[in-house]
């Protein structure tokens, strides 16, 4: 059995699930969390494909920039800290 393939399938499945959850999550912050999972798993797949440098740079640059998105998500969208979707005006 090829363990590279198993790891690749596991990471890809995680990445696809997280990518679907990015668009289907009701709360913006959940989307940002799943986006960070997606970006880190893409980095892991790069490392699996023997491209260690680009994988680590992917994690440093993209996953490192997620907090910025997070800040925008908090500061520019809702007035309250946390609000149920059905309670929104």
């Amino acid at each position: 059995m090829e363990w590279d393939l198993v790891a690749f399938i596991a990471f890809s499945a995680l990445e696809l699930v997280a990518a679907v959850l990015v668009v289907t999550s009701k709360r913006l912050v959940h989307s940002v969390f799943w986006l960070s999972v997606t970006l880190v798993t893409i980095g892991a797949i790069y490392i699996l494909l023997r491209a260690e440098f680009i994988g680590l740079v992917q994690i440093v640059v993209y996953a490192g920039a997620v907090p910025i998105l997070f800040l925008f998500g908090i500061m520019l969208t809702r007035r309250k800290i946390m609000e149920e979707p059905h309670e929104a005006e």
Partner: protein
Amino acid sequence: MSGHLIDLYGLCEGLITFVNGLVGRIMTGVAGGIETIGIAPPGAGAPLRDQAALMNSPWVIGLIAWLTAIQIMILWGTAINLLLMMWMERKFYSRLQDRVGIKIGLTSMDFLARLPIIGGLFTNFVKRPSHLGTGFLQNVADGVKMVQKENLTPAKADAFTFHAAPVLIAASTLLIFAALPFSEGFTIMQSPNPFGVLFMLAAFGLAPIGILIAGWSSNNKYTLIGGMRSAAMLMSYEIPMILSIISVVVLMGSLDPFEIVRTQSEPISASIPALGFLANPAALDGIYFPNWNVFTAFPAFLVFAVAILAEQERIPFDLPEAEAELVEGWLTEYSGMRFGLVFGFKWLRGLAGSGLLVILFLGGWTGPHLTLPLGGFSLPLPFQELWFMVKVYLVFMVYVWISWSFPRIRIDQILNIGWKVLIPIALLAIFLSISLRAFGVYH
């Protein structure tokens, strides 16, 4: 010059080979036994023999050896170093404040004086048993208290992200230790590790996500403000940190921590011929002026040290959890061991940051040592692990000293220092390093 005492993976592999070989031998013995005694038909022991053969196959031994090595690294990092660093910090700042600090230790335990024979040695301790120890058990007691406490979830909190955030913070902190070598042998990622420094930076960069999620999901204005401040600070200090590493990488020509340390262990006159007068051929063997980056890239060292201080959220930069303003910052709503985890792992990030500083600027685990021949085994003294830990603890003590001597600075000052002071100095350091290389001063 191999001066390490422990080869972590080799040790684990030997241990697992021994244990698996023993168990496999017992299983084949049992398989042969039940066939010869006659309680089972011939061939009934085949599954046991197959199992024994599987257990002794190279990939099973390799897998279990890797898992054991990772476990030992995690235990060494958390259980030993975390407790030791918290103890050292508490004792040290207590001395700075002219008091003795925590004192509950093994010798202050009441039952020792009541033991039948050796109890007489501890008789005096009975009167004030909590005042005569070394204080090392105080942190253990705090940890036990935290484990016992209820793990509360605030009613309006976002339960999923609230519980995911400590896991993210703990996992990203432990990930640093996958690439952080304590010596040439005591490491998870083995010697040619071409992107080790980059790996540690990537793991450092994942922590702000967990901190922001923790701050947001508690649904509390204090935690949200703390998380926002923490993200703003960590983001703005990550940039000078990475820029200051660039100047080291320019000088060393590598991102491999082993290569960086090996280059730093050489005499400085080997890299800078102009400093040849520092070379002393008549000196003792192994004692010379080393090529540490702290000498050749001093501005980068300053920037990196300040950035690591901010990365730990220690007192001059502890705005994210300013007690007087924001209860406990982004970890206000956590209780029980989750609080212990996110609170204690700041020390672990401090350890990892100090370790990175020592590897990049202070020569890592190299230092003058004797080699004692002990039978067929030559024991280096002090061995590499000892040099590394002494340097790391000294750097950490300097951080403790700074953080208990200075007042907290304001958010605008923090961002001004980060963007207007540290980044220009880091760029200047890169310019200096490139000039040293370009004009042939540094080989």
